[in-house]
């Protein structure tokens, strides 16, 4: 059986198919093509929710996104908060309930897919109403690349809500033909259910396409639920229509109170009668269409209450013919009813004064206070608005390059005008792009419409209820009233922004779509200033709310951020490595054996490297090929030390500073030829250092003949480390004499392995005898395997970054970014030896001479040995003076510095740390304290090199 308020025929719904849904626990039926709101209205249900502060009933007050009343929570198929019943398309199995202004998030992750697509067009048309369709057709016929997006489920815009005719046929026939024509144009993208929600620079418009929401549980899981279209348009035609606005009066929030145009939409588009007995309250001619259409559909229209002294003389005859009582010069002053309007209180209105009133019984009160052009996208694109006294609305106030507003969004409110204006907008856009409009871009003929009677701009009806405006709602979602605005002004506020913030008007889900202009108008009225001076609050994106996940798109889970891996990654995974994130890289941190924790694994790995042989995947180190006759000059300028004196075949460690003299990176440099260097950077510094070099070369020293090329992924780097490394490397690369004499520390040699070029370098980041093996990653797995095989007799042990850190810390080698923090100079690190005194200048040199750099109390890198030989000082711990009584004084406690690196050492058989300590080198031999979990741990300050200070081992 059909629900009681469903018409017998008509509407854009599929009457042959019934869908079942549950609202507030009640099982109801509707049809495909319904919205949740229209289906509820078909059952006679207006009240959807209660208001947030006052708990007053809230009903469906509009037919689309401007509705300030019908907030719902969807529960099935997946919980989604704060949707409007008017924009939720009905599907089988929908479960929803009304919301008191606050939604509920699901407590399980959303498994739906979301994505984004870039699209480029000559002309983007937003809105597929009469103006938008006309614009799209005009642009398409000219051969332009066109996108047409529209937020509704089907094209037609306002034509879906009425009975207009074009070319002597129902207008929707023209709509269908237009859609078909666009579909036949290969360069046209036409998207419905797609809301352009943000308009940015250079024709960039973001639109959200709801791809599968209307399918409910039947939505395919491998297709994105919602898609963000990133449309880059050379020109934009905004044909977004207009929102009807209400007039404010006492108790104007009672369910059954609705915008007049919405009732017409529910009737014609959805086949729903929003009531049986209606009162229509208007200030303009448009609501007469609703009154007459409802009357024809069988609704008893009790009266048309027109605030204008004469009403609409032009429509009077039609009303009389339909038996509708016309009450010109009258207003609705209030309503009666419990959870639904039962009476409208109507009173004569002249010169702003309200006379004695009477109650007219009704279950539907329709209101029209005029139309607000939907200027959101225009305003977001930084177009200035101007207030139009006649329409009582803000209109585009200036022309923008690349963005045209057309149709009722520009204040054109008649059908013929909208069609013509859409075509005008498109032609202007095409002309600006140098595209010739087609000779034949005929538009259908709209019947001649008579000139309407001028609307009356009426923001509010004086409150005669005695409530002093406290039930005259301006923002229904925020429960904000005329009284609240008056109170804000009474408190001294003058700016519309202050009024908004004081009253919270316009901050709710609808972002003031209906309340914004009313607030400007009422504020101006109360202040006695023109509305233009009050202005409006800023229109901010998005136009309608957009789910976080839709904006996150596919950048979630494993695609949230790229994982960079080396050529040996699969081997590391198979070997059971535990990984560490270093920038975007995944690096093996350690390789636990069964039953081992990190400490045990690291002690084992360290011991192998110190006593036998270990092997590391060091491929993430940044590598830069620096070539050209002036390569050495460039490096001399960028490193603190001298690189031009480096011999071909040799390697030098270098430090790089910023212009402020603080260390930014370090690494080794291999001189490959007179005019060619291979520069190694830290893993995290690779991109930064290349950019740094390019910046100086390009912007400051373009005369230098040098080129820098990233070769980070061109070489895997495999340090083979430990006293037995020579045996291993010698066995795998018999072509090289690996003896200390023939291949000394800090030199490199080229060789090959079965025809594949290999480079070996005597570089040690561990203090042990070590060889770094460089090879094209195509052969990484093969070479790694050969090294493991050759090392097996020596117990070769792969080790990770944790062991690498321990080994280097034992040697006092700093890690940039761990032992430094952007406030540390080479001198602070004890690396004065790496700062050239010969070079007249290099980047950072001048800053070393600043007063603060001469401070003897600068923090310097030193070693710390916990006196108890037990405690591993947590990295990050603060260092304080030694306190004889072992008690911390009350805060603030002066701090000397902090622990930057701290490990258990197999070699030292005790924990040790590196720390930046105020005047640290002067304190060597002293004892300081480190607060750890509430106790003070004494630690001896030492030099930073704790293992093999003479360097005998690495020299092998």
């Amino acid at each position, binding site marked *: 059986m059909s629900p009681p308020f469903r018409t017998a025929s008509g509407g854009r719904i599929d009457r042959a198919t019934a869908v079942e849904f549950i609202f507030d626990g009640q099982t109801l039926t509707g049809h495909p093509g319904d919205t949740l709101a229209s289906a509820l209205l078909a059952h006679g249900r207006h009240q959807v929710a209660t208001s947030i502060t006052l708990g007053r009933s809230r009903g469906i007050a509009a037919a689309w996104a401007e509705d300030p009343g019908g907030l719902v929570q969807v529960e099935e198929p997946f919980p989604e908060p704060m949707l409007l019943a008017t924009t939720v398309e009905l599907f089988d199995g929908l479960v929803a309930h009304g919301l008191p202004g606050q939604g509920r998030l699901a407590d399980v992750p959303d498994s739906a897919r979301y994505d984004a697509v870039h699209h480029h067009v000559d002309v983007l048309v937003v809105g597929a109403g009469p103006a938008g369709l006309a614009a799209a057709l005009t642009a398409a016929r000219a051969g332009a690349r066109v996108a047409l997006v529209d937020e509704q489920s089907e094209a037609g815009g306002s034509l879906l809500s009425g009975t207009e005719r074009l070319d002597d046929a129902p207008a929707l026939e023209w709509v269908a033909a237009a859609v078909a024509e666009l579909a036949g144009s290969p360069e046209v993208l036409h998207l419905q259910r797609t809301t352009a929600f943000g308009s940015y620079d250079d024709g960039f418009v973001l639109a959200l396409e709801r791809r599968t929401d209307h399918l409910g549980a039947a939505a395919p899981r491998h297709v994105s639920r919602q898609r963000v279209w990133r449309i880059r348009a050379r020109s934009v035609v905004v044909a977004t229509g207009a929102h009807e606005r209400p007039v404010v009066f006492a108790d104007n929030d009672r369910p059954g109170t609705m915008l007049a145009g919405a009732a017409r939409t529910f009737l014609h588009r959805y086949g729903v009668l929003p009531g049986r007995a209606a009162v229509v309250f208007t200030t303009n001619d448009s609501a007469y269409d609703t009154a007459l259409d409802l009357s024809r559909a069988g609704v008893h229209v009790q009266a048309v209450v027109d605030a204008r002294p004469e009403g609409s003389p032009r429509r009077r005859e039609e009303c009389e013919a339909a038996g509708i009582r016309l009450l010109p010069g009258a207003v609705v002053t209030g309503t009666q009813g419990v959870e639904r309007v039962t009476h409208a209180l109507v009173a004569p209105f002249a010169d702003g004064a309200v006379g004695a009133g009477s109650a007219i019984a009704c279950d539907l009160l329709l209101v029209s206070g005029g139309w607000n052009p939907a200027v959101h996208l225009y305003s977001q694109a930084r177009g200035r608005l101007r207030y139009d006294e006649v329409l009582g609305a803000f209109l585009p106030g200036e022309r923008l390059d690349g963005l045209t507003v057309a149709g009722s969004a520009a204040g054109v409110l008649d059908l013929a005008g909208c069609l013509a204006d859409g075509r005008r907008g498109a032609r202007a856009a095409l002309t600006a792009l140098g595209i010739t409009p087609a000779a034949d871009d005929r538009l259908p003929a709209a019947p001649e419409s008579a000139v309407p009677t001028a609307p009356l701009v009426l923001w509010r009806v004086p409150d005669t209820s005695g409530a002093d405006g406290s039930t005259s709602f301006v923002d229904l979602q925020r429960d904000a009233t005329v009284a609240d605005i008056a109170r804000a002004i009474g408190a001294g506020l003058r700016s519309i922004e202050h009024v908004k913030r004081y009253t919270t008007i316009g901050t709710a889900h609808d972002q003031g779509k209906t309340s914004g202009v009313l607030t400007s108008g009422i504020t101006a009225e109360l202040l006695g200033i023109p509305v233009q001076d009050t202005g409006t609050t800023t229109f901010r994106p998005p136009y309608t709310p957009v789910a976080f996940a839709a904006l996150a798109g596919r950048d979630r889970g494993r695609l949230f951020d790229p994982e960079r891996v080396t050529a040996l990654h699969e081997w590391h995974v198979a070997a059971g490595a535990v990984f560490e994130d270093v920038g975007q890289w995944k690096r093996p941190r350690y390789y636990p054996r069964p039953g081992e924790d990190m400490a045990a694994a690291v002690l084992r790995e360290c011991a192998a490297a110190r006593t036998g042989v270990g092997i590391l995947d060091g491929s993430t180190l940044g590598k830069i090929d620096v070539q050209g006759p002036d390569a050495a000059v460039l490096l001399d300028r960028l490193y603190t030390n001298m690189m031009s004196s480096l011999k071909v075949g040799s390697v030098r460690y270098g430090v790089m500073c910023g212009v402020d*003299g603080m260390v930014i990176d370090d690494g080794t440099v291999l001189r490959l030829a007179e005019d060619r260097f291979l520069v190694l950077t830290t893993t995290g510094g690779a991109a930064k250092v290349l950019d740094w070099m390019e910046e100086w070369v390009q912007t400051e020293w373009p005369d230098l003949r040098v080129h820098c090329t990233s070769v980070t992924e061109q070489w895997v780097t495999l340090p083979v480390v430990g006293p037995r490394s020579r045996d291993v490397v010698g066995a795998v690369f018999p072509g090289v004499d690996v003896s200390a004499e023939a291949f000394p520390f800090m030199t490199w040699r080229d060789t090959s392995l079965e025809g594949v070029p290999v480079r070996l370098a005597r570089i040690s980041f561990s203090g042990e005898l070590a060889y770094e093996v460089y090879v094209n990653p195509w052969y990484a797995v093969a070479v790694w395997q050969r090294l493991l095989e050759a090392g097996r007799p020596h117990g070769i042990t792969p080790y990770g970054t944790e062991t690498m850190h321990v080994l280097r810390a034992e040697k006092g080698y700093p890690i940039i970014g761990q032992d430094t923090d952007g406030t540390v100079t080479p001198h602070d690190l004890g690396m004065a030896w790496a700062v050239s005194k010969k070079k007249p200048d290099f980047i950072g040199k001048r800053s070393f001479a600043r007063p603060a750099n001469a401070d003897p109390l600068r923090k310097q890198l030193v070693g710390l040995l916990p006196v108890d030989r037990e405690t591993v000082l947590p990295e990050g711990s603060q260092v304080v003076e030694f306190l004889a009584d072992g008690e911390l004084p009350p805060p603030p406690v002066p701090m000397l510095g902090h622990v930057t690196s701290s490990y258990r050492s197999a070699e030292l058989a005790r924990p040790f740390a590196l720390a930046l300590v105020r005047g640290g080198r002067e304190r060597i031999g002293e004892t300081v304290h480190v607060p750890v979990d509430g106790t003070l741990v004494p630690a001896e300050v030492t030099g930073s090199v704790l293992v093999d200070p003479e360097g005998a081992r690495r020299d092998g």
Partner: protein
Amino acid sequence: MSLGSSHATGTPPTPGADLPEHPDLLWRDTEPKRTYDVVIVGGGGHGLATAHYLAKNHGITDVAVLEKGWLAGGNMARNTTIIRSNYLWDESSGIYEHALKLWEGLEDDLGYPILFSQRGVLNLAHTLQDVRDSVRRVEANKLNGVDAEWLEPDEVRKVCPVVNTSTDIRYPVLGATYQPRAGIAKHDFVAWGFARRADEAGIDLVQDCEVTGFTTDGDRVTGVRTTRGAIGAGTVVLCAAGHTSVLTDMLGIRVPIQSHPLQALVSELLEPVHPTVVMSNAVHVYVSQAHKGELVMGAGVDSYNGYGQRGAFHVIERQMAAAVELFPVFARAHLLRTWGGIVDVSPDASPIVGRTPYENVYLNCGWGTGGFKATPGIGSALAHTIAHDEPHPLVAPFSLDRFVTGALVDEHGAAAVAH
């Protein structure tokens, strides 16, 4: 009349629905006088707070606050209202902790319900270096008397159950620093509270009054030219975050700040789900749930200089990805509104406060994203500075000449987390 109709669904009263009542009078609409002992340029949080403390602590009331637009309509109206003092360096935690102590008594001091909520702030660590930096900051905070704890992931989950602490995400949460006394407040109400007190003390709050120039006499500024006429000044204080350089350019003072767009956003109102404040540097988002129930979020600054009070949307998209990654339950929360402010970034991410080459002009700028949380602290310290004509010890380290000596207060590498 049917006020208070029954809830159709039997839902309990909406949490956060009842915002406090505002006073009947906030401030007078004033015409500027011809001259004032003190002219504060900029009617934002800092300017208004300075005015309040000038009157309250020092009895100085011949003061004008000049605002080019509407009071507190700049960064004050646009920020995400996080209040904390867990900065690394002594100098920074000094001024911010001073501010936090004032925040703790501010509701009483102002007699205004500023919705100060000490719900704590978590700074998440996602990498081993994050952990080191976090522990370093926590330990420094403790020694400086600032409440701070290091939390392991399971403790993070207890404080904020909706944070994704699983280990199989791209950048797992390795722990967090936690400052329980940190929190949020309602930005507008804070500004209005200061404004009302200043107004009550007889201080003139002059809106729509843009400073267009200065009149000088040797090393002194004698007054300001404004869109509402010339105003004489005994002392001038520049508190115009977002437009400091415009003013200092007029005075020929060079200040090492760059103004960048910083964006923020809110969701619609949601049932309470997020009980604290969470900030993540590596995954790059910060979020709290304000009193009414909206999620308030922000991220990093846009890269280029900009005075446009708007930024690029890709920054928002990246922020949403980070939010959903860290808080999977946010997936179907909706972005309701985005906006932008202007942050003045200094080379060491610390403010610049103190004397200028003009002997009666004080500078207060470069707060980056820290301005809101410092509001009462800097207001009182600036008022002290003006009253004694000598920088308050808490602001002394932030003088302009540190860029010459090199004695920076570099919060970049150290604090890890901005905002």
